[in-house]
């Protein structure tokens, strides 16, 4: 394995930077190994070697299906913290501000600091109260004394309201962009589901963006190459959009059914939390194939 990896690294250095490796090239480089684990380890060694040379983190993903189709996508990404997937607006307005604004925007009735602390589910009541006072001092929210208790409402007429609404809407921008991008794919995915912390909105700056792709039958080498290229470009695109890494689960329909029948916990999580961004909902897909 070590000899394979070193030889492949020398070959890899002559490749164009940042280019996706097409399956034919990858298979040529990995053809010496008949062992599945060596396939994976060799590809990983190549990617890490590239990364070490450049001082960046390398990544690779190796996809198997019954040893018939071997698709490899190797991409090089610079490691840096990304977007806070639980509250993307924190990239511009840190601390408690965004969760409090979200809690205020989620209701039309006035609320106390205690109520907003419970809904925002961050910080202490004292901290939330201080943040509310700052927002009120700038007029972004109103505060009013009702029966000896201060209550707060969002000021929809404030000059900053549109910016606040835009920041609150950012968490829906990622699924929208994925949907728009995948709509132009050819070959198109049978289904695509955003899952994990990006779907649940409970991640942080170090969280990956997890995406399940159900690939269609890829009957020609050209279609396989195009699929890998699309996945590679999507990985780069998500990194540009968020700073986070895209982790792709690239399954065929057969693999999906197999996991569903073996009660794979991930499938339950996909059905429960997943956000569909292409094709029919996963539940419908599984019903059709049952």
């Amino acid at each position, binding site marked *: 394995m070590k000899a394979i990896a070193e030889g492949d690294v020398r070959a890899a250095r002559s490749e164009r930077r940042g280019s996706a490796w097409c399956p034919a090239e990858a298979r040529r480089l990995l053809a010496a190994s008949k062992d599945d684990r060596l396939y994976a380890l060799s590809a990983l060694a190549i990617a890490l070697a590239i990364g070490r040379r450049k001082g960046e983190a390398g990544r690779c993903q190796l996809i198997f299906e019954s040893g018939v189709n071997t698709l490899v996508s190797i991409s090089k990404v610079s490691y840096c913290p990304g977007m806070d997937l639980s509250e993307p607006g924190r990239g511009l307005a840190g601390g408690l501000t965004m969760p409090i604004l979200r809690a205020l925007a*989620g209701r039309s009735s006035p609320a106390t600091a205690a109520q907003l602390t*419970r*809904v925002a589910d961050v910080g202490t009541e004292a901290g939330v109260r201080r943040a509310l006072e700052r927002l009120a001092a700038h007029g972004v929210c109103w505060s009013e004394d009702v029966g000896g208790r201060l209550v707060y409402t969002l000021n929809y007429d404030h000059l900053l309201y549109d910016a606040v609404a835009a920041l609150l809407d950012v968490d829906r921008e990622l699924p929208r962009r994925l949907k728009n991008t995948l709509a132009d794919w050819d070959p198109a995915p049978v289904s695509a589901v955003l899952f994990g912390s990006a779907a649940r909105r409970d991640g942080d700056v170090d969280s990956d963006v997890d995406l399940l792709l159900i690939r269609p039958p890829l009957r020609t080498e050209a279609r396989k190459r195009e699929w890998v290229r699309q996945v590679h470009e999507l990985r780069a695109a998500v990194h540009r959009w968020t700073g986070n890494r895209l982790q792709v689960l690239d399954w065929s329909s057969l693999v999906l059914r197999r996991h569903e029948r073996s009660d794979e916990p991930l499938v339950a999580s996909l059905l429960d939390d997943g956000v569909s961004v292409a094709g029919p909902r996963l539940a419908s897909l599984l019903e059709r194939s049952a």
Partner: protein
Amino acid sequence: MSAPLRRRRCTGEDARARRRQAVAYLETAKLVTSDGSLPAEYDYNHVAAGVAVLAAIAASDALCCRLLGERSRGQDHRDAVDLLTTVRFGDGTPAVQAKRARDLGTALATVLDFKDEAHYGTTLLGPAQVRRLIKGADKLVSAAVAVVR
């Protein structure tokens, strides 16, 4: 301000639990529903109606817990509807969001009007009524699924 006796505090975790229950109730209601053409199947339609009511209440609780930190308790249907109409979410201007919340309140009110009959009544509900109930519950559950992650 909330009237403490009519409201119960709840958390984001409560919201997620109620959302899951709402989805399960609605799926069950749809499974049980028959086309209702046979008198013998009216029992099942009645059951579907009862379960659809539970789906709608769970979905409303999920939305209120997530966005307001409290939900209505007890038998006061009016309070449950009023509370739901104060939530704000989704695309659009504040006016659009307000209309969305009012529509959900209307759906909940429609469902709650059938609650006593569906759960305790002896007059069986027919297929058209069941379809209305399921449609209302579906609207609420869809909103809960979109908002409560």
